[in-house]
């Protein structure tokens, strides 16, 4: 199981299939599992500590979620050490996702001026 493709043309690369490397990553997986549990506890705790500002409540909750998701993607899904091709695909996807969400929200909240009353939609 230890014949590796990448080491053949890139000697600086660590052998991803060697038992030592896998043993090391297993520790990483457990650590990330711990972080995810902690993050979940933190998110729920934030809910019970009432923050008056809606903006900050949403921002903090989504920030924690993003960090958690980042760990899942980077470590469990091996994205921290992935091939260029996959980065390319994902960057395009994220760009279009932002386009979909952002432009739709913008379009829904940009009203023609003559329909506004005191600067707000009637």
């Amino acid at each position, binding site marked *: 199981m230890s014949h590796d493709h990448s080491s053949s043309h890139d000697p600086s690369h660590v052998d991803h299939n060697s038992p030592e490397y896998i043993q090391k990553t297993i520790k990483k997986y457990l650590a990330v599992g711990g972080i995810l549990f902690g993050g979940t506890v933190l998110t729920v705790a934030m809910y019970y500590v009432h923050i008056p500002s809606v903006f900050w409540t949403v921002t903090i909750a989504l920030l924690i979620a993003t960090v958690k998701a980042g760990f899942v993607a980077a470590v469990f899904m091996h994205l921290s050490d992935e091939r260029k*091709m996959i980065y390319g695909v994902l960057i*395009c996807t994220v760009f279009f996702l932002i386009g979909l969400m952002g*432009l739709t929200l*913008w*379009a*829904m909240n940009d009203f023609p001026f003559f329909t506004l009353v005191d600067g707000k939609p009637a």
Partner: protein
Amino acid sequence: MQSTTTTTTLDTHDHAPHHDPGFLRSYVFSTDHKVIGIQYGFTALMFLLFGFLLVMCMRWQIAKPGVPIPLVSGLLESLLGDVAKGGVMSPDLYNSFGAMHGTIMVFLAIVPLAFAAFGNFVVPLQIGAVDMAFPRVNMVSYQCFAGGGVVMFVSFFIPGGAAQAGWTSYSPLATIVPTHGQTFWLIGMVLLITSSLLGAVNFIATVIQLRAPGMTWMRMPFFVWTQFVTAFILLLAFPPLEAAGILQLVDKVLGASFFLPTGLVVSGKLYDVSGGGSPLLWQHLFWFLGHPEVYVLILPAMGVVSEIIACNTRKPLWGYKSLVYSVLAVGFVSFIVWAHHMYLTGMGTKISTFFQTTTMIISIPSVIILTCLFMSLWGGSIRFNTPMLFALAFLPMFGIGGLTGLPLGFNFSDLHLHDSYYVIAHFHYVVAPGTIFALFAGVYFWYPKMTGRYMSETLGKIHFWGSLIGMNLVFMPMFFQGLYGMSRRMSDGGATYALSNAANEGVVTALTGTVIKMNVFITHAAFLLLLAQIPFIINVFMSMFNGKKVESDNPWQATTLDWQTPTPPPHGNFTKEIVVHRGPYEYSVPGHPTDFTPQNAPEPKLVK
């Protein structure tokens, strides 16, 4: 990139014992990309004809409202019942046929033909692959497509008939129509979208992973590039429509109100839903697919045309790199132009300006592509065979379609033209004499590779000239009808709003007699167009048995790898090891012994 690792796998089929997989495995549940391509092609052509026949009924109703449709009136009445009483189209039936004409043409005819059929058959051959990366996924993709087609087709015969809310299925209309046609439409769409997604994953993985040794990115035929970009568009633009379809299905079946606003009144009564939804949300999700879909329709067509032009002018494509970068740019920008379909929904000026700007930007790479293809003709010794005639006709026809789109992209001129016959003329010029001509060209061009026989040139030329004249006579007058203010989706061809109608006396915007009379003219032209398709249908079937046999595996003397296989290509495609040595369009290279040098040919001895 010059890897050497495929050799072991590429030549295994040489030594593999021959075994007969049986009829079902060979033709129905085949995992061979070529068989799947032909399955897609055949199904899509059937739907193309079916969609055309639907619109023929509509054209009759537009020209002669209330008069029974000749020839098929009895059939329609017996099949569909009350909605076609006495063979006359009721407005409901007209709406059904209109909605299904659009749906069938876009999702069941053109996309499967342009992307799935040609893509499946040609792409693996052109990149020197043995098959698609995931042959079984490929088979499932076709089965989902066929399932979606069956659901759509069956919906005509359920009580109340097929979907009636247009191919765009805007809510609330789509949701509140009391029949179940829309439910079928949504289930059909979910199947078709699944099919497209599986296909798109497969195409991208195939192009990235299975290129033959030496087939670098910039040596790929332009057709492969267009399919590659198309696959990306399908992959990323379709899922939001799938989401929207699921939401509308929940609205329709479970009575939710994602797209139904608070206080919705239907037929004078408050509609029994919770409300709180947003009709515009549907439009955003729909057009997020809807606009990129336009490029799904046109890009493969451009790919087909460029292959045929390069081969039949016997010279390289002009500006290969510009073509590649342009097609990438089109694919990219196509995701952020969608709301130019929605100028009339009351968007603010800032966002309208944004979408107007991106819309104008996307026309630049499109024009570059068209210009490169025109320039490629310069100085070529052109062979005017049928595929080339269709490819040549594509250029000006698509040009007309594209240029007439600009007034629709500017929001101030769109206010007048929106939802008029002008729009119909515009997008039909892009898709009908544009894309469909390119696809006909593709059928004539690759038919010898699929069957080992040419299609008849005589019948082909009748088909071509009849179609070219018919298409223009049908769609050109629609521009004028639209400019005069005739709205689309009127089951009486505008008679209600005609000056001749006593109720409209003195109304300056009423439709003049000339505009109404054009309806009759267009309908006659449409019958001419229908007649012109008969030679094609005969040609496809007759040439399988009577067509002139090809003299060699490369009957057009083409350079790309699809012609360097046996005819028809066997399972596994290539009988020799494929190593690519050169770019895709080395025609008439000075000093080479022939006027074409295949991509896999080693450096030829130069002729002194």
